Protein backbone atom coordinates (compact mmCIF):
# COMPACT_ATOMS: atom_id res chain seq x y z
CA UNK A 1 0.00 0.00 0.00
CA UNK A 2 1.24 3.43 -0.85
CA UNK A 3 0.03 6.65 0.55
CA UNK A 4 1.01 10.21 0.08
CA UNK A 5 -0.14 13.34 1.73
CA UNK A 6 0.32 16.80 0.37
CA UNK A 7 -0.15 19.99 2.25
CA UNK A 8 0.51 23.24 0.56
CA UNK A 9 2.18 26.20 2.15
CA UNK A 10 -0.21 28.87 3.27
CA UNK A 11 2.32 31.51 2.52
CA UNK A 12 2.23 30.79 -1.18
CA UNK A 13 0.97 33.87 -2.81
CA UNK A 14 1.00 34.32 -6.50
CA UNK A 15 1.22 37.25 -8.79
CA UNK A 16 -2.47 37.17 -9.48
CA UNK A 17 -3.12 38.29 -5.95
CA UNK A 18 -1.53 41.65 -6.61
CA UNK A 19 -4.23 44.09 -5.69
CA UNK A 20 -5.55 45.88 -8.68
CA UNK A 21 -6.49 49.39 -7.76
CA UNK A 22 -9.22 50.83 -9.87
CA UNK A 23 -11.36 53.71 -8.89
CA UNK A 24 -14.89 54.33 -9.96
CA UNK A 25 -14.79 55.73 -13.40
CA UNK A 26 -16.89 58.66 -14.39
CA UNK A 27 -18.36 58.71 -17.81
CA UNK A 28 -20.74 61.07 -19.48
CA UNK A 29 -24.27 60.79 -18.27
CA UNK A 30 -26.24 58.70 -20.66
CA UNK A 31 -29.28 60.58 -21.77
CA UNK A 32 -31.72 62.92 -20.17
CA UNK A 33 -32.32 62.13 -16.52
CA UNK A 34 -35.35 60.06 -15.72
CA UNK A 35 -38.01 62.25 -14.18
CA UNK A 36 -37.22 65.27 -16.32
CA UNK A 37 -40.38 66.95 -17.57
CA UNK A 38 -40.20 67.86 -21.24
CA UNK A 39 -42.52 70.72 -22.05
CA UNK A 40 -43.74 72.06 -25.34
CA UNK A 41 -46.13 74.89 -26.08
CA UNK A 42 -46.81 76.30 -29.50
CA UNK A 43 -47.75 79.91 -30.08
CA UNK A 44 -50.04 80.94 -32.92
CA UNK A 45 -50.03 84.50 -34.24
CA UNK A 46 -52.62 85.53 -36.79
CA UNK A 47 -54.56 88.34 -38.39
CA UNK A 48 -58.22 88.70 -38.95
CA UNK A 49 -59.38 91.15 -41.56
CA UNK A 50 -55.84 92.47 -41.80
CA UNK A 51 -55.69 93.24 -38.09
CA UNK A 52 -53.15 91.45 -35.89
CA UNK A 53 -54.76 89.50 -33.06
CA UNK A 54 -53.39 88.55 -29.68
CA UNK A 55 -51.46 85.28 -29.93
CA UNK A 56 -52.93 82.04 -28.69
CA UNK A 57 -50.90 79.36 -26.87
CA UNK A 58 -51.51 75.68 -27.32
CA UNK A 59 -52.89 73.38 -24.68
CA UNK A 60 -53.01 69.58 -24.67
CA UNK A 61 -56.80 69.78 -24.55
CA UNK A 62 -57.05 72.82 -26.81
CA UNK A 63 -57.02 76.53 -25.98
CA UNK A 64 -58.68 79.46 -27.68
CA UNK A 65 -58.14 82.14 -25.08
CA UNK A 66 -55.58 84.69 -26.31
CA UNK A 67 -52.67 85.84 -24.25
CA UNK A 68 -49.90 84.39 -22.18
CA UNK A 69 -50.17 81.24 -20.10
CA UNK A 70 -51.21 83.18 -17.02
CA UNK A 71 -53.99 84.95 -18.86
CA UNK A 72 -55.22 82.01 -20.86
CA UNK A 73 -54.52 79.19 -18.46
CA UNK A 74 -53.12 77.24 -21.41
CA UNK A 75 -50.90 74.41 -20.32
CA UNK A 76 -47.78 73.14 -22.00
CA UNK A 77 -47.88 69.68 -23.50
CA UNK A 78 -45.57 67.59 -21.36
CA UNK A 79 -44.22 64.16 -20.80
CA UNK A 80 -41.91 62.83 -18.15
CA UNK A 81 -38.68 61.11 -19.19
CA UNK A 82 -38.84 57.53 -18.11
CA UNK A 83 -36.18 55.32 -16.60
CA UNK A 84 -34.23 53.47 -19.23
CA UNK A 85 -32.45 50.77 -17.25
CA UNK A 86 -29.25 49.89 -19.04
CA UNK A 87 -26.04 48.59 -17.53
CA UNK A 88 -23.13 46.31 -18.24
CA UNK A 89 -21.50 43.73 -16.02
CA UNK A 90 -18.12 42.43 -17.18
CA UNK A 91 -15.09 40.64 -15.82
CA UNK A 92 -12.37 43.14 -15.04
CA UNK A 93 -9.05 43.48 -13.27
CA UNK A 94 -6.99 40.37 -13.89
CA UNK A 95 -8.56 38.85 -17.00
CA UNK A 96 -8.58 35.09 -16.82
CA UNK A 97 -8.94 32.66 -13.98
CA UNK A 98 -7.47 33.71 -10.68
CA UNK A 99 -4.89 31.23 -9.44
CA UNK A 100 -5.51 29.71 -6.02
CA UNK A 101 -3.75 27.04 -4.05
CA UNK A 102 -5.73 24.39 -2.20
CA UNK A 103 -7.55 25.87 0.78
CA UNK A 104 -6.44 29.39 -0.06
CA UNK A 105 -8.79 32.17 0.94
CA UNK A 106 -8.77 35.89 0.29
CA UNK A 107 -8.30 35.61 -3.46
CA UNK A 108 -10.94 37.21 -5.64
CA UNK A 109 -12.37 37.54 -9.08
CA UNK A 110 -13.27 41.05 -10.19
CA UNK A 111 -16.15 42.48 -12.15
CA UNK A 112 -17.12 45.98 -13.19
CA UNK A 113 -20.68 47.19 -13.30
CA UNK A 114 -21.46 50.37 -15.21
CA UNK A 115 -24.73 52.23 -15.25
CA UNK A 116 -25.60 53.25 -18.79
CA UNK A 117 -29.15 54.21 -17.90
CA UNK A 118 -30.55 57.64 -17.20
CA UNK A 119 -31.26 57.18 -13.53
CA UNK A 120 -29.30 56.46 -10.37
CA UNK A 121 -29.76 52.81 -9.46
CA UNK A 122 -28.94 50.31 -6.77
CA UNK A 123 -27.96 46.81 -7.82
CA UNK A 124 -28.47 43.61 -5.88
CA UNK A 125 -25.66 41.12 -6.39
CA UNK A 126 -25.72 37.35 -6.17
CA UNK A 127 -22.50 35.34 -6.57
CA UNK A 128 -22.73 31.58 -6.90
CA UNK A 129 -20.67 28.61 -7.93
CA UNK A 130 -21.35 27.56 -11.46
CA UNK A 131 -22.04 23.87 -11.64
CA UNK A 132 -20.34 22.53 -14.71
CA UNK A 133 -20.03 24.65 -17.78
CA UNK A 134 -17.07 26.31 -19.41
CA UNK A 135 -15.81 29.81 -18.65
CA UNK A 136 -12.87 31.18 -20.61
CA UNK A 137 -12.04 27.68 -21.79
CA UNK A 138 -11.99 26.22 -18.28
CA UNK A 139 -14.48 23.51 -17.44
CA UNK A 140 -15.89 23.82 -13.97
CA UNK A 141 -15.08 20.89 -11.72
CA UNK A 142 -14.63 22.49 -8.33
CA UNK A 143 -16.74 24.63 -6.02
CA UNK A 144 -15.49 27.46 -3.88
CA UNK A 145 -16.81 28.03 -0.37
CA UNK A 146 -17.42 31.19 1.62
CA UNK A 147 -18.30 33.21 -1.46
CA UNK A 148 -18.51 36.84 -0.42
CA UNK A 149 -19.23 39.93 -2.50
CA UNK A 150 -17.47 43.21 -1.82
CA UNK A 151 -18.48 46.31 -3.73
CA UNK A 152 -15.75 48.89 -3.97
CA UNK A 153 -18.04 51.87 -3.49
CA UNK A 154 -15.25 53.88 -1.91
CA UNK A 155 -12.90 53.17 -4.81
CA UNK A 156 -9.99 52.09 -2.64
CA UNK A 157 -9.44 48.91 -4.64
CA UNK A 158 -9.51 46.87 -1.47
CA UNK A 159 -11.89 44.37 -0.05
CA UNK A 160 -12.70 45.45 3.44
CA UNK A 161 -15.28 44.19 5.86
CA UNK A 162 -17.17 47.44 5.58
CA UNK A 163 -17.62 47.14 1.81
CA UNK A 164 -21.27 46.41 1.12
CA UNK A 165 -22.38 43.41 -0.89
CA UNK A 166 -24.60 45.52 -3.11
CA UNK A 167 -24.18 48.56 -5.33
CA UNK A 168 -25.50 51.67 -3.65
CA UNK A 169 -26.68 54.70 -5.64
CA UNK A 170 -24.67 54.27 -8.83
CA UNK A 171 -25.30 57.41 -10.83
CA UNK A 172 -25.72 57.55 -14.56
CA UNK A 173 -22.53 56.79 -16.44
CA UNK A 174 -20.59 55.69 -13.36
CA UNK A 175 -19.02 52.31 -12.84
CA UNK A 176 -17.98 50.41 -9.77
CA UNK A 177 -15.71 47.43 -9.19
CA UNK A 178 -17.02 44.31 -7.53
CA UNK A 179 -14.83 41.69 -5.88
CA UNK A 180 -16.00 38.16 -5.28
CA UNK A 181 -13.82 36.57 -2.63
CA UNK A 182 -13.94 32.85 -1.98
CA UNK A 183 -12.04 30.00 -0.39
CA UNK A 184 -10.64 27.22 -2.51
CA UNK A 185 -11.36 23.62 -1.59
CA UNK A 186 -8.45 22.04 0.31
CA UNK A 187 -8.41 19.27 -2.25
CA UNK A 188 -8.40 21.61 -5.24
CA UNK A 189 -6.45 19.86 -7.97
CA UNK A 190 -3.74 21.45 -10.04
CA UNK A 191 -5.36 23.05 -13.11
CA UNK A 192 -8.92 22.43 -11.93
CA UNK A 193 -11.36 25.32 -12.32
CA UNK A 194 -14.02 26.68 -9.99
CA UNK A 195 -16.18 28.99 -12.07
CA UNK A 196 -18.19 31.77 -10.50
CA UNK A 197 -21.36 33.46 -11.73
CA UNK A 198 -22.15 36.98 -10.62
CA UNK A 199 -25.66 38.21 -11.17
CA UNK A 200 -26.65 41.86 -10.92
CA UNK A 201 -30.29 42.75 -10.46
CA UNK A 202 -31.25 46.38 -10.86
CA UNK A 203 -32.86 47.87 -7.77
CA UNK A 204 -34.48 51.14 -6.86
CA UNK A 205 -32.20 53.92 -5.68
CA UNK A 206 -33.13 56.66 -3.27
CA UNK A 207 -34.75 56.19 0.05
CA UNK A 208 -32.82 55.34 3.16
CA UNK A 209 -29.24 54.09 2.85
CA UNK A 210 -29.12 50.48 1.87
CA UNK A 211 -30.24 48.30 -0.95
CA UNK A 212 -33.53 49.27 -2.52
CA UNK A 213 -36.19 46.89 -3.71
CA UNK A 214 -35.71 45.21 -7.06
CA UNK A 215 -36.82 47.57 -9.78
CA UNK A 216 -39.99 46.35 -11.42
CA UNK A 217 -41.15 46.86 -14.95
CA UNK A 218 -44.35 48.82 -14.80
CA UNK A 219 -44.93 48.96 -18.51
CA UNK A 220 -48.44 47.71 -17.93
CA UNK A 221 -49.31 50.79 -15.93
CA UNK A 222 -47.20 53.23 -17.90
CA UNK A 223 -48.30 56.83 -17.88
CA UNK A 224 -47.21 60.14 -19.30
CA UNK A 225 -46.76 61.88 -15.98
CA UNK A 226 -44.81 59.38 -13.89
CA UNK A 227 -41.47 57.66 -14.28
CA UNK A 228 -41.95 54.32 -15.97
CA UNK A 229 -39.26 51.67 -16.22
CA UNK A 230 -37.93 50.30 -19.47
CA UNK A 231 -35.51 47.42 -19.13
CA UNK A 232 -33.02 48.02 -21.91
CA UNK A 233 -29.89 46.45 -20.47
CA UNK A 234 -27.74 45.48 -23.37
CA UNK A 235 -28.67 48.53 -25.40
CA UNK A 236 -25.38 50.21 -24.63
CA UNK A 237 -23.45 47.01 -25.18
CA UNK A 238 -24.99 46.64 -28.61
CA UNK A 239 -23.87 50.10 -29.57
CA UNK A 240 -27.34 51.47 -29.11
CA UNK A 241 -28.78 49.62 -32.04
CA UNK A 242 -30.59 46.68 -30.50
CA UNK A 243 -33.39 47.55 -28.17
CA UNK A 244 -34.63 44.25 -26.84
CA UNK A 245 -36.66 44.57 -23.70
CA UNK A 246 -34.92 42.79 -20.87
CA UNK A 247 -35.60 41.93 -17.26
CA UNK A 248 -33.12 44.14 -15.43
CA UNK A 249 -30.83 41.21 -14.71
CA UNK A 250 -27.37 40.51 -16.09
CA UNK A 251 -24.90 37.72 -15.41
CA UNK A 252 -21.15 37.57 -15.84
CA UNK A 253 -18.70 34.78 -15.20
CA UNK A 254 -15.16 34.41 -14.03
CA UNK A 255 -13.35 31.72 -12.11
CA UNK A 256 -10.55 30.42 -10.01
CA UNK A 257 -8.03 27.83 -11.11
CA UNK A 258 -6.14 25.55 -8.85
CA UNK A 259 -2.39 25.64 -8.51
CA UNK A 260 -1.30 22.55 -6.60
CA UNK A 261 1.10 19.71 -6.52
CA UNK A 262 0.30 16.83 -8.82
CA UNK A 263 1.90 13.62 -7.67
CA UNK A 264 2.27 10.32 -9.39
CA UNK A 265 3.80 7.33 -7.71
CA UNK A 266 5.34 4.22 -9.20
CA UNK A 267 7.03 1.19 -7.71
CA UNK A 268 9.28 -1.10 -9.66
CA UNK A 269 10.91 -4.36 -8.64
CA UNK A 270 14.13 -5.64 -10.24
CA UNK A 271 15.58 -9.09 -9.67
CA UNK A 272 19.24 -8.57 -8.93
CA UNK A 273 20.57 -12.05 -8.25
CA UNK A 274 19.81 -15.50 -6.90
CA UNK A 275 22.02 -17.82 -4.84
CA UNK A 276 22.71 -20.14 -7.76
CA UNK A 277 23.00 -17.97 -10.83
CA UNK A 278 24.30 -14.85 -9.16
CA UNK A 279 23.58 -11.85 -11.32
CA UNK A 280 23.58 -14.00 -14.40
CA UNK A 281 20.91 -13.80 -17.03
CA UNK A 282 19.29 -16.98 -15.71
CA UNK A 283 18.69 -15.62 -12.21
CA UNK A 284 15.32 -16.52 -10.75
CA UNK A 285 13.07 -15.16 -8.05
CA UNK A 286 13.69 -18.01 -5.73
CA UNK A 287 14.32 -18.05 -1.98
CA UNK A 288 17.51 -16.24 -1.28
CA UNK A 289 17.19 -14.09 -4.40
CA UNK A 290 17.79 -10.35 -4.05
CA UNK A 291 15.20 -7.92 -5.36
CA UNK A 292 15.60 -4.14 -5.57
CA UNK A 293 12.53 -1.99 -5.07
CA UNK A 294 12.38 1.59 -6.37
CA UNK A 295 9.51 3.82 -5.39
CA UNK A 296 9.27 7.08 -7.38
CA UNK A 297 7.11 10.04 -6.45
CA UNK A 298 7.02 12.63 -9.24
CA UNK A 299 5.52 16.11 -8.81
CA UNK A 300 4.26 17.39 -12.15
CA UNK A 301 2.24 20.19 -10.53
CA UNK A 302 2.96 23.84 -9.90
CA UNK A 303 3.34 23.80 -6.14
CA UNK A 304 5.63 22.09 -3.65
CA UNK A 305 4.15 18.90 -2.27
CA UNK A 306 4.92 19.09 1.40
CA UNK A 307 5.22 16.61 4.23
CA UNK A 308 5.12 13.61 2.00
CA UNK A 309 4.86 10.28 3.78
CA UNK A 310 5.26 7.11 1.80
CA UNK A 311 4.14 3.86 3.33
CA UNK A 312 4.91 0.54 1.73
CA UNK A 313 3.53 -2.63 3.20
CA UNK A 314 6.14 -5.32 2.97
CA UNK A 315 5.47 -8.96 2.37
CA UNK A 316 6.25 -11.31 5.23
CA UNK A 317 8.12 -13.45 2.70
CA UNK A 318 10.91 -10.94 2.29
CA UNK A 319 13.67 -9.53 4.47
CA UNK A 320 15.31 -6.13 4.06
CA UNK A 321 18.94 -6.37 2.98
CA UNK A 322 20.86 -5.00 5.94
CA UNK A 323 23.37 -2.18 5.46
CA UNK A 324 23.12 -2.36 1.69
CA UNK A 325 23.94 1.35 1.38
CA UNK A 326 26.57 1.12 4.09
CA UNK A 327 26.42 0.65 7.86
CA UNK A 328 22.97 1.75 9.13
CA UNK A 329 21.79 2.35 5.59
CA UNK A 330 19.01 0.11 4.41
CA UNK A 331 16.93 2.67 2.54
CA UNK A 332 18.17 5.40 0.23
CA UNK A 333 16.06 8.52 -0.16
CA UNK A 334 16.99 10.55 -3.26
CA UNK A 335 15.08 13.80 -3.29
CA UNK A 336 16.01 15.43 -6.57
CA UNK A 337 19.68 14.58 -6.02
CA UNK A 338 19.77 15.16 -2.27
CA UNK A 339 20.51 11.71 -0.89
CA UNK A 340 19.88 10.55 2.64
CA UNK A 341 20.03 7.09 4.11
CA UNK A 342 18.01 5.57 6.85
CA UNK A 343 18.07 2.46 8.90
CA UNK A 344 15.69 -0.12 10.18
CA UNK A 345 17.56 -0.28 13.47
CA UNK A 346 16.48 1.59 16.58
CA UNK A 347 16.45 4.39 17.56
CA UNK A 348 13.90 5.08 14.94
CA UNK A 349 14.48 8.76 14.32
CA UNK A 350 16.02 8.69 10.89
CA UNK A 351 12.89 9.16 8.83
CA UNK A 352 12.39 5.49 8.11
CA UNK A 353 10.39 3.17 10.21
CA UNK A 354 9.61 -0.48 9.88
CA UNK A 355 6.57 -1.08 11.96
CA UNK A 356 4.02 -3.84 11.57
CA UNK A 357 5.63 -5.09 8.41
CA UNK A 358 5.48 -1.77 6.67
CA UNK A 359 8.16 0.63 5.56
CA UNK A 360 7.26 4.23 6.24
CA UNK A 361 9.37 7.07 4.88
CA UNK A 362 8.97 10.72 5.87
CA UNK A 363 7.34 10.19 9.25
CA UNK A 364 10.05 11.81 11.33
CA UNK A 365 10.93 14.93 9.33
CA UNK A 366 9.21 16.64 6.48
CA UNK A 367 9.94 15.57 2.94
CA UNK A 368 8.93 18.17 0.37
CA UNK A 369 8.92 17.45 -3.33
CA UNK A 370 9.41 20.50 -5.50
CA UNK A 371 7.52 20.99 -8.75
CA UNK A 372 9.02 19.07 -11.67
CA UNK A 373 11.16 16.90 -9.43
CA UNK A 374 11.05 13.28 -8.35
CA UNK A 375 11.61 11.62 -5.02
CA UNK A 376 13.14 8.15 -5.31
CA UNK A 377 13.27 5.57 -2.53
CA UNK A 378 15.43 2.52 -3.07
CA UNK A 379 15.94 -0.59 -0.95
CA UNK A 380 16.77 -4.27 -1.45
CA UNK A 381 15.20 -7.37 -0.05
CA UNK A 382 15.92 -11.02 -0.09
CA UNK A 383 13.21 -13.55 -0.70
CA UNK A 384 12.76 -15.81 2.30
Amino acid sequence: MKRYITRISWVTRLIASAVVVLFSQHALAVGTDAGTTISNQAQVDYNVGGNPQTFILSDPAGNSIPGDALTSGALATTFVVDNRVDFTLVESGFIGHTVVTPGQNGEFVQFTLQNHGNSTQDFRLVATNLVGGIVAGQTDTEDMSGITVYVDNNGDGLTTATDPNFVEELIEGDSVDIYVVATAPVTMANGAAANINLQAIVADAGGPPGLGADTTDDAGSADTAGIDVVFAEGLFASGGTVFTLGDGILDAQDGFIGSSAALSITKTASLISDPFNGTGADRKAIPGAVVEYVISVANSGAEVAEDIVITDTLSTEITIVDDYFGVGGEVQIDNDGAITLCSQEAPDTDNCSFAAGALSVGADSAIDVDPATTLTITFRVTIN
Partner: protein
Amino acid sequence: MKTIQRLAIFSALALFTTGAVAQETAQEVPTGHLLVKTIVQKEEVVIDDNGDQKVQLVDARVVVPGDEVIYTVTFQNISDAAADNVVITNPIAADLVYVDGSAFGPGSNIVFSVDGGQTFAATNELSVTENGTTRPAEPRDFTHIRWQMQNEIPAGTQGVARFRARLQ
Protein backbone atom coordinates in the same frame (compact mmCIF):
# COMPACT_ATOMS: atom_id res chain seq x y z
CA MET B 1 -56.63 78.65 -14.23
CA LYS B 2 -59.25 80.06 -16.46
CA THR B 3 -59.26 77.14 -18.83
CA ILE B 4 -60.32 74.87 -16.07
CA GLN B 5 -62.94 77.37 -15.04
CA ARG B 6 -64.15 77.51 -18.55
CA LEU B 7 -64.32 73.76 -18.96
CA ALA B 8 -66.25 73.60 -15.75
CA ILE B 9 -68.60 76.19 -17.12
CA PHE B 10 -69.17 74.27 -20.31
CA SER B 11 -70.01 71.25 -18.20
CA ALA B 12 -72.38 73.37 -16.21
CA LEU B 13 -73.98 74.66 -19.39
CA ALA B 14 -74.46 71.18 -20.62
CA LEU B 15 -76.29 70.29 -17.48
CA PHE B 16 -78.16 73.55 -16.91
CA THR B 17 -78.64 75.20 -20.25
CA THR B 18 -80.53 78.09 -18.68
CA GLY B 19 -78.00 78.70 -15.92
CA ALA B 20 -77.83 82.54 -15.85
CA VAL B 21 -74.91 82.71 -13.43
CA ALA B 22 -72.80 80.42 -15.52
CA GLN B 23 -73.53 82.38 -18.70
CA GLU B 24 -72.47 85.64 -17.07
CA THR B 25 -69.16 84.10 -15.99
CA ALA B 26 -68.59 82.69 -19.46
CA GLN B 27 -68.96 86.11 -21.04
CA GLU B 28 -66.01 87.41 -18.98
CA VAL B 29 -63.64 85.04 -20.81
CA PRO B 30 -62.44 86.49 -24.11
CA THR B 31 -62.22 83.91 -26.83
CA GLY B 32 -59.87 84.04 -29.79
CA HIS B 33 -60.56 82.80 -33.26
CA LEU B 34 -58.45 79.67 -33.13
CA LEU B 35 -58.51 76.60 -30.91
CA VAL B 36 -54.88 75.55 -30.57
CA LYS B 37 -53.92 72.13 -29.37
CA THR B 38 -50.58 70.33 -29.03
CA ILE B 39 -50.29 66.63 -28.44
CA VAL B 40 -47.16 64.51 -28.05
CA GLN B 41 -47.06 60.96 -29.32
CA LYS B 42 -44.60 58.29 -30.28
CA GLU B 43 -44.59 55.54 -32.81
CA GLU B 44 -45.25 52.04 -31.68
CA VAL B 45 -44.98 48.89 -33.71
CA VAL B 46 -48.02 46.72 -33.18
CA ILE B 47 -48.99 43.38 -34.61
CA ASP B 48 -52.40 43.55 -36.20
CA ASP B 49 -54.96 40.78 -36.41
CA ASN B 50 -53.34 39.51 -39.59
CA GLY B 51 -50.00 39.19 -37.85
CA ASP B 52 -48.54 42.08 -39.80
CA GLN B 53 -46.39 44.73 -38.22
CA LYS B 54 -48.01 48.10 -38.17
CA VAL B 55 -46.63 51.41 -36.95
CA GLN B 56 -49.14 53.50 -35.11
CA LEU B 57 -49.03 56.66 -33.06
CA VAL B 58 -49.69 56.26 -29.38
CA ASP B 59 -49.58 58.60 -26.41
CA ALA B 60 -46.04 59.33 -25.30
CA ARG B 61 -46.48 57.47 -22.07
CA VAL B 62 -43.13 55.71 -22.08
CA VAL B 63 -40.30 57.82 -23.44
CA VAL B 64 -36.66 57.10 -22.71
CA PRO B 65 -33.48 58.64 -24.09
CA GLY B 66 -33.07 57.83 -27.76
CA ASP B 67 -36.78 57.68 -28.40
CA GLU B 68 -38.43 59.94 -30.93
CA VAL B 69 -41.56 61.82 -30.06
CA ILE B 70 -43.96 63.46 -32.48
CA TYR B 71 -45.55 66.79 -31.71
CA THR B 72 -48.72 67.67 -33.53
CA VAL B 73 -50.13 71.17 -33.32
CA THR B 74 -53.66 71.65 -34.60
CA PHE B 75 -55.32 75.02 -35.00
CA GLN B 76 -58.99 75.13 -35.74
CA ASN B 77 -60.74 78.32 -36.75
CA ILE B 78 -63.70 78.38 -34.40
CA SER B 79 -64.77 81.89 -35.41
CA ASP B 80 -66.94 83.19 -38.23
CA ALA B 81 -64.05 85.03 -39.87
CA ALA B 82 -61.07 83.77 -41.83
CA ALA B 83 -57.68 84.00 -40.13
CA ASP B 84 -54.71 84.99 -42.21
CA ASN B 85 -51.00 85.45 -41.75
CA VAL B 86 -51.21 82.50 -39.39
CA VAL B 87 -47.80 81.74 -37.91
CA ILE B 88 -47.15 78.84 -35.54
CA THR B 89 -44.01 79.10 -33.50
CA ASN B 90 -42.84 76.09 -31.52
CA PRO B 91 -39.80 75.95 -29.28
CA ILE B 92 -37.75 72.76 -29.17
CA ALA B 93 -37.07 71.69 -25.60
CA ALA B 94 -33.43 71.66 -24.55
CA ASP B 95 -33.34 67.88 -24.07
CA LEU B 96 -34.80 67.27 -27.52
CA VAL B 97 -33.08 67.32 -30.88
CA TYR B 98 -35.10 68.07 -33.95
CA VAL B 99 -35.21 65.17 -36.39
CA ASP B 100 -33.91 66.51 -39.68
CA GLY B 101 -36.57 66.94 -42.31
CA SER B 102 -39.42 65.97 -40.03
CA ALA B 103 -41.27 69.32 -39.83
CA PHE B 104 -44.48 69.07 -41.78
CA GLY B 105 -47.36 71.42 -42.37
CA PRO B 106 -49.65 71.51 -45.41
CA GLY B 107 -49.62 74.91 -47.04
CA SER B 108 -46.84 76.25 -44.87
CA ASN B 109 -43.40 77.64 -45.28
CA ILE B 110 -41.22 76.20 -42.54
CA VAL B 111 -38.33 78.14 -41.08
CA PHE B 112 -36.06 77.57 -38.12
CA SER B 113 -34.27 79.57 -35.48
CA VAL B 114 -30.86 78.91 -33.94
CA ASP B 115 -30.95 81.96 -31.65
CA GLY B 116 -33.75 81.21 -29.26
CA GLY B 117 -36.50 82.41 -31.58
CA GLN B 118 -35.18 85.87 -32.33
CA THR B 119 -34.64 85.27 -36.05
CA PHE B 120 -35.90 82.63 -38.42
CA ALA B 121 -34.68 81.40 -41.78
CA ALA B 122 -34.69 78.35 -43.99
CA THR B 123 -32.36 75.59 -42.83
CA ASN B 124 -29.79 76.18 -45.55
CA GLU B 125 -29.52 79.85 -44.62
CA LEU B 126 -28.74 79.26 -40.97
CA SER B 127 -25.28 79.15 -39.52
CA VAL B 128 -23.79 78.87 -36.07
CA THR B 129 -20.63 80.48 -34.75
CA GLU B 130 -18.71 78.42 -32.26
CA ASN B 131 -15.30 79.31 -30.87
CA GLY B 132 -14.88 81.95 -33.54
CA THR B 133 -15.65 79.68 -36.47
CA THR B 134 -18.88 79.67 -38.38
CA ARG B 135 -20.45 76.51 -39.69
CA PRO B 136 -23.78 75.60 -41.25
CA ALA B 137 -26.49 74.95 -38.69
CA GLU B 138 -27.37 71.37 -37.89
CA PRO B 139 -30.63 70.00 -36.54
CA ARG B 140 -29.21 69.94 -33.02
CA ASP B 141 -28.77 73.71 -33.21
CA PHE B 142 -32.41 74.46 -33.86
CA THR B 143 -34.20 76.12 -30.98
CA HIS B 144 -37.52 76.92 -32.63
CA ILE B 145 -39.59 75.87 -35.60
CA ARG B 146 -41.99 78.24 -37.32
CA TRP B 147 -44.72 77.39 -39.77
CA GLN B 148 -45.82 80.34 -41.89
CA MET B 149 -49.18 79.48 -43.39
CA GLN B 150 -49.34 80.61 -46.98
CA ASN B 151 -53.09 80.69 -47.15
CA GLU B 152 -55.82 81.94 -44.89
CA ILE B 153 -57.56 79.55 -42.55
CA PRO B 154 -61.27 79.88 -43.41
CA ALA B 155 -63.84 79.78 -40.67
CA GLY B 156 -64.56 76.26 -39.50
CA THR B 157 -61.42 74.74 -40.98
CA GLN B 158 -58.34 73.37 -39.32
CA GLY B 159 -54.63 73.36 -39.99
CA VAL B 160 -51.90 71.13 -38.70
CA ALA B 161 -48.18 71.42 -37.99
CA ARG B 162 -46.06 68.50 -36.97
CA PHE B 163 -42.46 67.62 -36.21
CA ARG B 164 -40.37 64.90 -34.67
CA ALA B 165 -37.71 65.23 -32.02
CA ARG B 166 -35.40 62.76 -30.37
CA LEU B 167 -34.92 62.69 -26.63
CA GLN B 168 -31.27 62.96 -25.73
